[in-house]
């Protein structure tokens, strides 16, 4: 692999084993893929196949066991400031207001709070939370909290977003709404996104590509290019092309015996 690539994410032969009492668990097994700058990549796979593990390695909070991962050409050797991470739960701090939660990366990275407060407020209205900046997390619904988490990941304008099942805990209606909003934000800001999900339709709806992983140990099973035009409306889910992609991916899981969607 060339030391410098133009890819935003370059993963090659990446493996991760966790040490456990009875030997070890291989969570991720020689996974290789690239993501070009500005692309929206969805990752689907059965539970326990190592999706979160992959994300934590890319976020620099978990060392890989073998292989290598590069972000924008540089080897990952710790957390970086040009990525934003959204976890499955909102992970807000109850003692911070909505705006202060959004500004957490700004505080940690000691950036100019005054300047970024305006950025934060703009982003909050972008996700439909105008006027909620002085509320506390417990005054918000689950979907609103998750939007705060997304805003927090965007506030320091990272080049890359890593999202681990961010809408997993939401009901179907809120979830579709959030999908639309995420697409809108992405169309406006064009960041590289790695989006992990359990839901095959969600992956096809959001992704330029869908990476399909095998059950544990996780490996890349297929790399599906979704050519549906943007912006996609919810109606796109009724098109034959959408159905074909969903069917194809689901069939892959059925062959491998790990269905989960």
């Amino acid at each position, binding site marked *: 692999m060339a030391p410098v690539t133009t890819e935003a994410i370059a993963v090659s032969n990446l493996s991760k084993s966790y040490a456990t009492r009875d030997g070890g668990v291989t969570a991720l097994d020689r996974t290789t893929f690239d993501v070009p700058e500005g692309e929206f990549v969805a990752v689907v796979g059965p539970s326990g196949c190592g999706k979160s593990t992959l994300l934590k390695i890319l976020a620099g909070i978990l060392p890989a066991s073998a292989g290598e991962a590069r972000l924008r050409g540089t080897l990952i050797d*710790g957390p970086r400031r040009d*990525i934003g991470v959204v*976890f499955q739960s909102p992970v807000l701090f*109850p003692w911070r207001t909505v705006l202060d939660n959004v500004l957490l990366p700004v505080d940690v990275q000691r950036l100019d709070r005054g300047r970024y407060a305006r950025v934060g407020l703009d982003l909050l209205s972008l996700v439909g939370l105008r006027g909620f900046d002085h509320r506390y997390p*417990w005054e918000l619904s689950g979907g609103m*909290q998750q939007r705060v988490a997304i805003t927090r990941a965007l506030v320091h304008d990272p080049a890359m977003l890593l999202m681990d099942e961010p809408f997993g805990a939401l009901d179907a209606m809120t979830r579709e709404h959030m999908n639309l909003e995420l697409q809108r934000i992405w169309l406006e800001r064009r960041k590289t996104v790695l989006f992990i999900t359990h839901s095959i339709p969600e992956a096809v709806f959001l992704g330029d590509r869908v990476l399909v992983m095998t059950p544990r140990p996780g490996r890349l099973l297929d790399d599906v290019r979704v050519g549906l035009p943007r912006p996609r409306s919810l109606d796109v889910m009724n098109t034959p092309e959408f159905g074909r992609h969903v069917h194809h991916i689901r069939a892959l899981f059925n062959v491998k015996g790990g269905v989960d969607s």
Partner: protein
Amino acid sequence: MRWTGRNLGLTLLLFALTIAVWEAVVRILQIPIFILPAPTQVGMALYRGLASGLYVEHLKYTLLETLLGFIVGSALGFFLGTAVAMNRYVEFFFYPYIIMFQSLPKVALAPLIVVWFGLGLTSKVINAALIAFFPLLVNTMVGLKSADEDRVSLMRSLAASERQIFWMLRLPNALPFVMAGLDVAMIFALIGAIVAEFVGAQRGLGMLIQSMNFNMDVSGQFSILLILSLVGLLLNRIITLIRRRVMFWDPSEKDLLEPATDDVAAARVGRGLPAEAKEGVTP
């Protein structure tokens, strides 16, 4: 339960009834005053003590011992708890002693402390501090270590230093635990001061109880018990007020009934958890 007018009325009625029954029983059964005094006799003792200024003088002294002991003990408990929670070496060397002392009833040390530090203020403050120390130590430790794994991961993903994780996450996260510790430490400090006064003192309400006991002045003892329980209530109230200010974000401090998120539940558990942590801590 809310303090509606009706509730308040019922409470007062019940209280009056209890006092009346007590008075009646003492009079009808002619229980001697050195066994159980009637409420009227306790009231008279209280009036005499207060009017002569005797109680106030000793109360001031006991309060001073209690507050000094509370401040010294809880500050030390907080700092050592922080050191133990944040540093593996400190934990390794201190933990055995902490375990050993935790199961020891600290009041049993009072006689020794009075021998070592004399009949004056110092021995009372030290005894109060010693007892107030442990709830803070244990709760600070538990609180700092209980920071949610996901929140730590989030901070790490932002490239936060350990220092930043401590100040921005662990410390605020530990506050509910620390406040619960202070709650207990306050009452423990009062216990510590009184017990040390029992053992040997020249002033203080504990010393007063002791000397009244020699004189078989049971009414007087009752009247001081009354003062002490009021003092305990007052001290507790002060901590509650401080807690409300410090934990402004916690909706359960504002008497909201419906928690909106699991964070609230966590904060509630947070307050329940220290209670568990407290269990091993004896005065």
